[in-house]
């Protein structure tokens, strides 16, 4: 009996992951192209991202990774093609409706992009204000989000007083404030050290597992992609080279003690491990 239920669940999961056409998808791009001046950033890309997935996008510089991600909330408006997110065709929405839709698509960036003149609290609260979140409940919602990323005691600090990892946590809290269905991550750990990277990936994993948010993550770092994604799209020259399923393996936290550095530096031929 239990076996049957389990089998059904597994079949359902496989169906969800593999069935691109019949629902269960969160983001669907169809023949999307974008050109900057003379540079064709992405060429007729079609991609479906399923609900609940952590989807990686990897590729060399200039492969079109960021453009592909930024098309998903129309931060970059495609020249051609359809963008569908959470059941809405973004490409055919009015400006007003598009703004509304963007409130349920969170986004975080390599440079965090916090408002430096706002406190941590205000940075998260502004996201609620934009969505006309009931004023009386704002305080508790902001604090819930800050607790989720472990920064509840930082609410009155300014971004300049935080480390890179803490800034990215604030950015995640801000992106989560309006309970989005999707979180778009543009090189979220590329300006962080390896330990902080592992920390942020842990937070993103929680966002996915505990809150059920679909995550799309762009990175040029293989460790990041391998450490967290279920499925990865490899881009080359603006086109999809391949899409592969992987088993996420948590990246190990790298030792940063001075002894480790000395050992690594003096160990012949093992530098590439570092």
């Amino acid at each position, binding site marked *: 009996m239990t076996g049957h239920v389990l089998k059904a669940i597994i079949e359902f999961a496989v169906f969800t992951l593999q069935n691109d056409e019949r629902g269960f998808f969160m983001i669907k791009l169809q023949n999307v192209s974008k050109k900057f001046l003379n540079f064709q950033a992405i060429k007729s890309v079609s991609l479906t991202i399923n609900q609940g997935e952590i989807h990686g996008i990897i590729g060399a510089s200039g492969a079109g990774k960021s453009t592909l991600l930024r098309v998903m*909330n129309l*931060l970059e408006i495609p020249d051609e093609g359809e963008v569908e997110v959470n059941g809405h065709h973004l490409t055919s929405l009015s400006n007003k409706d*598009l*703004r*509304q*839709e*963007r*409130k349920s*698509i*969170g*986004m975080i*960036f390599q*440079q*965090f*992009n*916090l*408002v*430096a*003149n*706002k406190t941590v609290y205000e940075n998260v609260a*502004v*996201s609620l*204000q*934009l*969505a006309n979140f009931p004023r009386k409940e704002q305080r508790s919602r902001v604090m819930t989000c800050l607790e989720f990323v472990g920064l509840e005691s930082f609410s009155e600090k*300014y971004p*300049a007083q935080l480390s890179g990892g803490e800034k990215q946590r604030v*950015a995640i809290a*801000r992106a989560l404030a309006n309970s989005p269905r999707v979180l*778009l991550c543009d090189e979220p750990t590329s300006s962080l050290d390896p330990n902080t990277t592992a920390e942020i990936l842990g937070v993103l994993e929680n966002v996915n597992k505990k809150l059920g948010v679909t995550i799309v993550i762009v990175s040029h770092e293989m460790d990041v992609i391998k450490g967290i994604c279920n499925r990865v799209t490899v881009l080359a020259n603006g086109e999809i080279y391949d899409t592969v399923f992987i088993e996420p393996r948590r990246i190990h936290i790298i030792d940063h003690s001075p002894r480790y550095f000395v050992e690594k530096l003096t160990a012949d031929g093992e530098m590439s491990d570092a």
Partner: protein
Amino acid sequence: MPEIVIQYQAEILSSIGETFVMVGVSILAAVLLGLPVGTFLFLLRKGQVLENRFAFSTVNLLVNIIRSFPFLLLVVFLIPFTRFVIGTAIGTAAATVPLAIIAIAHYSRLVEQALLDVPKGVMEAAISMGASVNEIIVKFLYVEARSGLVLGLTTSIISFISYSTIMGVVGGGGIGDFAIRYGYQQFKTDLMIYMIMIMVILVQLIQFIGTTVSRLIDKR
């Protein structure tokens, strides 16, 4: 207090009052109209949310033309317009018209510069959160650029004081006009020097306030 200053106390006080009126109107014009014009200059640029090459070029050209006039010529040139708006081209009220116009052009340029210092990523974050143009301006741009906006206004106010000193040509009065008429033209050099000292103190005070405020509100 020096005897000569006491002797002309009434005239000095009223000329200080006139300067305050002229500079005050300039500040109002700068904040109420220069700030929006400068914001448009920024938002109409390429790659910004209201990108519009034609509108940008038009506003940009207009601001440049106003700023290229030697100010004395602008005052004379605007006499018909001033007469149309105020009913007369002579007096302190009439003097505020050309001052307001140069104030708008002057401050709008400094606003544009201050807004250009806001990191592009902050704008992107605002857009990705679904902010409207008004929300981007009020909740992001002005918040992030506020110390630059204050410093720019400080620079502008000091220029307005300088501009106001030549308004004697249309009977605008003010400290500068008093210094010229009583100090220079009536050979009371000491009186002129006292007037210059008042101006120096005024400018020092404004710059000090401006710098302090901009530092206090800058959390970057």
